[in-house]
């Protein structure tokens, strides 16, 4: 080997050791955020109708069946409205374009490798099937509906699918990988997508987890390109990793639920926007050592969150402060519901039994209002 070749080889080794050949994915010193399992248990209130989806039966496996309940009006009763003719072991994802209208996706489970989609226009009385999706992601906001009937979905392969109408097939809008390669994606150092939504005007919104600290990963489509459109976080949180836990439409605007920081420095924030860009940010609510069990939205953009440890908090809307709830009644699965302004309900399950609770009195306490025995068909998804 000549001296020149030795020098070149040495230089190459030094460059390799210095990482010259590698692509910088995220700013140095920012750890890649670990994926957070987002609970699919949720409730949302659309034009006076509250929908809630919650697992029942066994704690997991083929005898766990996700159920859909609906509550009409603040003083109404909860009714079982799970779509028929399909096994719901894989959980339900909900999208509600309007009153009495709900589109439901069924996540893949057991030997079912794709996601059936079904819709009701009469509050869950009758259902009709829509074209199947390749397989919804394991997140509560994997499906969203625009007022004009268009649908958007996030699937298990981190691909965003879009449907021009409820009866049309699905086509790929983008993928997490493609989005990460855009200028907006690079600014965020996008790690993965967690939610899809529409703005009230019908423009798609995507949300995810950014690798860059202090950046809320919400993307809006403008002129065929994706722009980073999330809220600016307070300076105190600018060094924290941010995850968009939920993104949904409620009360005529989009609501995002964010978690900043992890472990002892974790805190929750909500953000509201009417156009997907100009966000109003709530105060941060510290949840040291806790994690989100489920999150729900009210018709007026209110947010309710069940935290680990049997705690619950609500936020009535922009400009309001977080309100801690009395200790939540126990349950195999628990979800808060906000059927009307100032009204907080709760659903808790134990096997085949659903118990509804309502926050009443001063000081506030939980009062049992209803019990529903659900005819779970144990063994029906287990084969023989």
């Amino acid at each position: 080997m000549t001296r020149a070749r030795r020098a070149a080889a040495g230089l190459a080794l030094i460059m390799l050791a210095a990482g010259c050949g590698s692509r910088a994915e995220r700013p140095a010193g920012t750890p890649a955020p670990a994926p957070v399992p987002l609970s699919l248990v949720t409730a949302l209130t659309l034009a006076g109708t509250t929908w809630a989806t919650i697992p029942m039966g066994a704690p997991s496996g083929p005898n766990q069946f996700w159920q859909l309940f609906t509550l009409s009006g603040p003083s109404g009763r909860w009714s079982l409205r799970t779509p028929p003719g399909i096994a719901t072991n894989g959980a339900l994802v909900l999208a509600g374009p309007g009153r009495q209208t709900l589109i439901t996706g069924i996540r893949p489970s057991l030997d079912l490798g794709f996601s059936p989609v079904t819709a009701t226009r009469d509050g869950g009385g009758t259902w009709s099937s829509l074209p199947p999706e390749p397989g919804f992601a394991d997140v509560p906001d994997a499906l969203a509906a625009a007022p004009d009937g268009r649908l958007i979905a996030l699937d298990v392969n981190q691909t965003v699918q879009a449907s021009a109408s409820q009866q049309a097939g699905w086509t790929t809008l983008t993928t997490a990988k493609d989005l990460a390669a855009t200028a907006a994606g690079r600014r965020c150092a996008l790690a993965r997508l967690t939610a899809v939504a529409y703005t009230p005007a019908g423009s798609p919104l995507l949300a995810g987890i950014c690798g860059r600290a202090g950046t809320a990963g919400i993307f809006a489509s403008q002129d065929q390109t994706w722009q980073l459109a999330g809220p600016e976080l307070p300076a105190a949180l600018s060094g924290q990793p941010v995850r968009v836990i939920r993104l949904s439409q409620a009360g005529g605007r989009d609501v995002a639920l964010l978690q900043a920081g992890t472990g002892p420095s974790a805190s929750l924030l909500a953000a509201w926007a009417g156009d997907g860009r100009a966000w109003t940010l709530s105060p941060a609510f510290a949840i040291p050592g806790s994690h989100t069990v489920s999150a729900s939205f009210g018709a007026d953009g209110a947010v309710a969150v069940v935290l680990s440890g049997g705690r619950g908090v609500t936020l009535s809307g922009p400009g309001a402060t977080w309100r801690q709830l009395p200790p939540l009644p126990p349950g195999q699965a628990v979800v808060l519901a906000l059927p009307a302004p100032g009204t907080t309900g709760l659903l808790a399950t134990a096997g085949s039994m659903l118990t509804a609770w309502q926050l009443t009195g001063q000081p506030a306490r939980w009062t049992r209002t209803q019990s529903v025995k659900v005819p779970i068909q144990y063994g029906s998804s287990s084969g023989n």
Partner: protein
Amino acid sequence: MPGMNNGLDPDDPTVVAASRAALLHQGLIVLLIFAVLSVAWVSVRGQPGGSRGWGREGSAHPLARVRAGLWAYGEPAGRQVLRIGFGLLWLADAVLLAQPGMAAGLPSQVIGPSAVTSPAWVQHVAGWAGNTWSYQPVEVSSAALWIEAGIGLWLLAAPRGTSSRLAGLASLTWGLVVWVFGESFGQIFAPGLSWLSGAPGAALLYAVAGALLVLPDRAWRTPRLGRALLGGLGVFLIGMAVLQAWPGRGFWQGASAGQPGTLAALAQTLAGTPQPHALSALLSGFASLVRAHGFAVNLVTVIVLAATGLAFLSARRRVTGPAVTAFIGVCLLAWVLTEDLGFLGGLGADPGSMIPMTLLAGGGYLALTRVPAAPAPDEALAEEAPAAEIGTDAIPEPVAGGLRDRWRERLGPAALHRSLTAATFGAMMSLGAIGVILLGAVPMAAAQVTPAASVILAQSMDGAANAMDAPAPDFTLTDQHGRQMSLAGLHGKVVLLTFLDPVCVTDCPLIAQEFRAAGQLLGARSRQVELVAVNINPLYSQLAYIRAFDHAERLDTVPNWHFLTSNPARLRQVYRAYGVASQTLPAGAMLGHSDIAFVVDQRGHLVQELNVDPGPGTAITKSSFAAELADAASQTLRSA
């Protein structure tokens, strides 16, 4: 463990009945083999030139001649003990393989448990064997039985010469097969290895005995072999004593933190298995003794193993004699107390390792102490002429010409006639035993190359197909490509027809896979067969669902697959015509419907109805249902 679950109860009545029937049929073939050989032998012997006797010596009394043919040769005593002892053991193993639960239960109750604590690569090897057995449980279990019975008979019938050595080779080979695949290498790679629990595995001892029987006669005519055998056993026992004494392996504690120690746990487990009460009480007593005095029991075990090993290594008659006697006694005790007679502690395929161990020790001692005199000239001659020994003791005349001519002469009718007329009773029995081994080996080999599992698994779960003869109700529906298709349009072909839910989470994807596999099993005949499914879920009747299902199940590339749908009203007409139920269940349950398939012949007649509930949906059961469907289609094609 993969491959161990065939989804069957070991006492499944369908498999037990099929197993019994197979053994009965094959037993008749075995009788036929021996009958034909006996008739041929007796009639040839009666002809001019025949020896007109039962034995070579031409004794007057038939039984005396049989004895003469079998035992006139002065076989070394050590060899005789091994040959007869292991011959009987192979026969006992064959009897154990005839247990009703063996066909369905051996993979999950014998192979699986023996491999479960071994390293992954051992589990992989055992899994392959369990899979093979599970795919063809009746065929392989009966094949193993006849192979072992044949080896046993052959060892008993061939006292000398090449035939006897070949019987030893068969014992060596099959012993190794059983040791590797059936006993997971005797669990020597698993933790807790102990002589008391059967190390190094009974089948390895069968193989060792087989290897000793393969040795030429001259090896038995010096005390060196006996010394080597006892020395080997001595080293093994000292090694086992060290393992037994090794701290931290749990043998010194009768109980620790309220839990029984290793040996006490073994005894307790054995005591809990179904067996005669007296034996169970004895084992419980032993378990209590070990629990209370674990240290003392292990100390005695270590001392006995080490002392016996040292005595065997010394190879001195005065020491080895009593040591062998004591060792046999200890082995018999351990056979009862720690091996539960080998076959009572669950589904046993052999009597355990202690009896083979006593035979090896006894054979080694006799080989050391009773060395036979030098062979008589005719015996030496016989040993040097292997070609004359399998079927006969006669030596072919040397013929002129090349090698090919000499072999032609040896295998020609005249030579065979000569051989037969000169054959002893033992040689005829050996020939019959080889036939019995082949009766097992051939189906065993065929099972290895059969791509599909036996239909007996499907039939055990869902019963046999029901024969029908009625016109198939016609229908016109839309296929996955959006084309109209009628059943009448498929006349001239055999149709396998079923009803599937495209959004089903359990049975339907499995049934679809079974249909796909059935098409593959049919091979070129699948061109004459159409695989047709009708959508049973009227709530998800859109073509998009049919296509999504086909895509998910990789059916979109199967040319003769047709998944048909239509509007709910028309679909319900088809359900009614075929008597198929479709029931919407509440609370997130999938649609309830019957798992059924029909075979429609070329004339458009329903000829068979099959229950195709796929059960646990293992690879084995799927393969079995596919085989059942393919068989049904083939049968219908043949009967056209």
